[in-house]
């Protein structure tokens, strides 16, 4: 008590802060050590679930990473790589490819995973992984069943040169969808719908030509 009234010496302060920091560090390390395996498992599980969701009918998938314009089977972990998930059925035949895409939405970045079926040359499903769109309006991009319907057969045919989509993905006003490459926007959530269309178009224009080019590598990857 007496010491306190005189004021504390710097040494005591430094000692206390250092002690507390060391204790904090220790606690955090323990927590990280204890939870990391579970967290990794959770994340992998979530991604796996999403891949199976956007590629219905597959029984297994493999992760490929994108390097320049080649696709390489990913061994082990690589946090930074641009990844594609190739789904195979029981007979190890390629069923579809799940691609991750992201772009600016109304509120924040929207991240989606979409499934591409090379035999149909179409997007067959889309799942929003992350979005902060306005609840009740913009969040209809992942709650509205009619909007999800757009991605059950979204035409993404490549043109003759195999470098671009024959018809870029377009978002049209609700009820005006006429062509298979168009997305019917949600009334009241036009900006969010357009954002999804734009990011899909961007990703498809960029990734699909590479996927088609490397189809042989991917076909063999299942074995």
């Amino acid at each position, binding site marked *: 008590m007496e010491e306190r009234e005189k004021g504390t010496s710097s040494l005591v302060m430094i000692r206390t802060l250092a002690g507390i920091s060391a204790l904090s560090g220790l606690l955090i390390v323990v927590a990280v050590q204890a939870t990391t395996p579970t967290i990794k498992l959770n994340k992998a599980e979530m991604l796996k679930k999403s891949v199976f969701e956007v590629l219905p009918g597959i029984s297994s998938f493999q992760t490929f990473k994108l390097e320049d314009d080649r696709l390489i089977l990913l061994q082990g972990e690589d946090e930074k790589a641009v990844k594609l998930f190739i789904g195979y059925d029981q007979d190890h035949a390629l069923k579809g490819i799940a691609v991750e895409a992201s772009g600016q939405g109304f509120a924040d970045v929207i991240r989606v995973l979409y499934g591409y079926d090379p035999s149909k040359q179409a997007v067959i499903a889309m799942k929003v992984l992350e979005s902060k769109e306005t609840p009740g*309006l913009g969040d209809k991009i992942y709650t509205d069943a009619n909007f999800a319907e757009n991605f059950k057969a979204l035409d993404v045919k490549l043109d003759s040169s195999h470098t671009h989509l024959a018809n870029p993905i377009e978002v049209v*006003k609700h009820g005006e969808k006429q062509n298979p490459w168009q997305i019917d926007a949600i*009334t*009241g959530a036009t*900006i969010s719908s357009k954002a999804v269309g734009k990011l899909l178009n961007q990703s498809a224009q960029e990734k699909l030509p590479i996927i088609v080019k490397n189809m042989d590598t991917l076909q063999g990857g299942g074995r």
Partner: protein
Amino acid sequence: MKSNYLSIVLRTSPHLSRGLSVETVMRQVIYALLPVTAMAIYTFGQSAALLLITTTLTCVLTEWIYTRLGRQEPTIGDWSAALTGLLLGLTLPPAFPLWMGVIGSIVSILVGKMIFGGLGCNIFNPALVGRAFLQASFPVAITTWSEAFAPDRFQYCASSTLAAPFLRPMVDAVSGATPLAAMKFSHQTTIVGDLFFGLTSGSTGETSAVLILLGGLYLAWRHLLDWRIPLAIMLSVALFSGIFWLAAPDRYPDPLFMLFSGGLMLGAVFMATDMVTSPLTPLGVWIYGGLIGLLVVVIRLLGGLPEGVMYAILLGNAFTPLISRMTGTKVYGTNRKLLSWK
């Protein structure tokens, strides 16, 4: 609780009383709204009549219950609750579900007025507070417009009107886009003559510009309304939309269309002129009107919504104390403003 608040003049004493009471003013405003109300019922039939009765009654009832519970003197005799209810009803789409109208009326009176201490203390126009709440709560219902002059409008009321409480209204097969929405989303303009006489679809009481103007003229003649406010708003809308129109006539509508479409007339004449929430000084009134007009043009032409009168007036209300203080007169013999911060 009758007060002569109309006699607040921004001059130092001595004051001269005009002998007007709140009750008289409110009653006169309601009389001025009667032609608009009649036209609304004629245009949209049963649904509009039911909606207007519901909002008016709910507002009066809410205020009565509030004063009863708070053990205060009842204030419904000053007609202001009834006026709020009527105005709220006139700004809603004709086939608006009644239960939503009830909620809007309760919010108008409770949140818009009574919470602040009752009439005279509210910052925002109560009817518009209720409408803003409804707009944010039920964005679909409040932008579903029924057709004007439907042939069976007096025999049946729209199924959405009678939607059971808390349940989603059924949307009728026929719905008419408002002139503003048609302009914004499909670039179709409506003939100004139709807008002037109210032959289009839209909110219950906003369609007939001529009747609203007549009501406004009556009030201005009786000195119950500051004619400068609507005039300032209209001039400002004409000016700013004129600039847009001259810059790109094919993209933006002409000023006449802007003036007579949507809720501009109703808002300018009956909402922005609310004595409690508009500035007190002559110069302040011009600034206030000009600001609202500018906001209307900006929201309508550059914003995401087809109509912006409601938000423009609410924002104008928010600026009112500031405008009043900025433009206050000096106290005679001193260098101090009558309404200063100190």
